[in-house]
């Protein structure tokens, strides 16, 4: 890393250049990512959308240093993803809640705080604060199995937020939830993003979810995984779920759908 790249990266939280990633499987090489270029500014809410196998999760895992790209350069906060991970620059919410069954809700939220060596008082304070933020006060002493799927996922969001990262990676966090719970959590997440001004990178395969939440939508396509369209999405900040009926919402959704259809090869 040189000084020049640091200074140019002041506003770019994420800077991806010509990234390729090949998986070597028994059936040959799978091009999970092919020549991906992307930059994400501070405070943006960027969604990756695309069909299964388009590399959207892989791209996010590359940013989080959970996968290594085959070629290309990636900067997160002006650092390599490994350095960013070592500095605990981001929070990551997985597809499943990934809670430890032997820990209570409170203790699950405390996990990253313990690992990162926060003082006992701070740990308690932060856990309380973020459990309250996801409306789970009063459930501290419950165990994960005593909660519904939606509540479990909210615990995992509180856990990711508790260390107060400026960057949040969310990998289809609501994918396994029912429509009503998902709507509710989408609404909560939007408020949360507006309140905290965090940078959020969000993976989804739901068009309405992407359009509702995002300030920018990255449309991806499989075989090889690549970006085929980037759509700005500047819906009013005070939007509610009702906006999904509005013409401007439908226009953006239509463009996302067209992008997905263009990138999709139905011969597969």
């Amino acid at each position: 890393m040189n000084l020049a790249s640091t200074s140019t990266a002041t506003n770019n939280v994420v800077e991806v250049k010509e990234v390729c990633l090949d998986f070597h499987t028994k059936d040959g090489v799978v091009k999970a990512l092919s020549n991906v270029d992307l930059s994400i500014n501070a405070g943006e809410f960027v969604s990756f959308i695309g069909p299964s196998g388009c590399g959207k999760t892989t791209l996010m895992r590359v940013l989080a240093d959970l996968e290594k790209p085959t070629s290309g350069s990636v900067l997160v906060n002006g650092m390599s993803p490994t350095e960013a991970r070592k500095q605990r620059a981001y929070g990551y919410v997985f597809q499943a809640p990934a809670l430890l069954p032997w820990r209570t809700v409170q203790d699950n939220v405390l996990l990253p705080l313990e690992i990162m060596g926060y003082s006992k008082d701070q740990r308690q304070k932060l856990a309380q604060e973020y459990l309250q933020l996801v409306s789970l006060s009063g459930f501290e002493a419950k165990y994960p199995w005593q909660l519904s799927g939606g509540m479990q996922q909210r615990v995992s969001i509180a856990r990711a937020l508790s260390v107060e990262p400026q960057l949040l990676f969310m990998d289809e966090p609501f994918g396994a939830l029912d429509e009503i719970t998902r709507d509710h959590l989408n609404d909560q997440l939007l408020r949360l993003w507006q309140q905290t001004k965090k940078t959020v990178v969000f993976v989804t395969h739901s068009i309405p979810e992407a359009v509702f939440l995002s300030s920018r939508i990255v449309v991806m396509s499989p075989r090889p995984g690549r970006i085929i369209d980037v759509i700005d999405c500047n819906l009013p900040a005070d939007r509610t779920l009702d906006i999904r009926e509005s013409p401007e919402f439908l226009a953006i959704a239509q463009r996302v759908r067209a992008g997905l259809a263009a990138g999709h090869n139905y011969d597969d």
Partner: protein
Amino acid sequence: MTTSIGRKPSATIPVLTVVLAIIMIWYAGAINLNSPQIIDRYEKKGVDWSFTQLATDSWNMKRAVLPSPHQILAELKTTIIDKNVTSKRSLVFHAGITLSSTLLGFVLGAGLGISLAVGIVYVETLDKSLMPWIITSQTIPILALAPMVIVVFGAMGISGLLPKALISMYLCFFPVAVGTVKGLRSPQPMLVDLLNTYSASKWQVFWRLRLPSAVPFLFASLKVAIALSLVGAIVAELPTGGQAGLGARLLSGSYYGQTNLIWASLIVAAVMSASLVSILGIIERKVCYRLAGGQEISNEL
């Protein structure tokens, strides 16, 4: 030997039926195995005999080929209740000796097994180099190894508990090592990724994720190991020439044709083994209940 860890009341009747069937087969077997000698005796004396006579005599024969259950019970009563615990003829005394070496061997074996597993999971070269040796070690028959170990230690002036415990350890560590390796590798990749996003150290991952995830696997192995440990202790007592321990009682029983003693010792060994496994089962249920966050889990033996 049937062991019932019956908690559900519905299990009682089937278990009792099986026990009853075994007892009936046993009595029938006693007639079958003991009657040739009895008939020989009848013919020498030239007495008339009926089947009832034959059955009664087969079931009460001294030094029977197969003693009947009530004879074994009588032997158990004399050797456990009637004899003073310090007596060399008390099975409690001998069981105590076997138990101490079983437990020491189990602790040593479990310790070795867990240490090896941690090494294998955390050090890649150990994974490649150690596992073949661990497997090879188990292909050596313990019956061939036990006398050598006892003799070698005896020559070095070490006898008694330690050499026997080492044989138990040798049998014990294998299931523990294999089970623990599997357990330590059992966490979902997602949970490992999660801790990686926190940039957690290896030991933080070990204590907070790998070890708790390994506990159910560990208990399954420990239950196998403690039963093997008892086998090891008994095998180790055989070459000592029948001094002390259940193995020694088995040996002297077969020297002097005291089949009652052999069976009584076997039953004490089996009850001891079943109790040890059950105790571990109870601890397992308590610990796993806590690890599941108090969720009721079915965890049959």
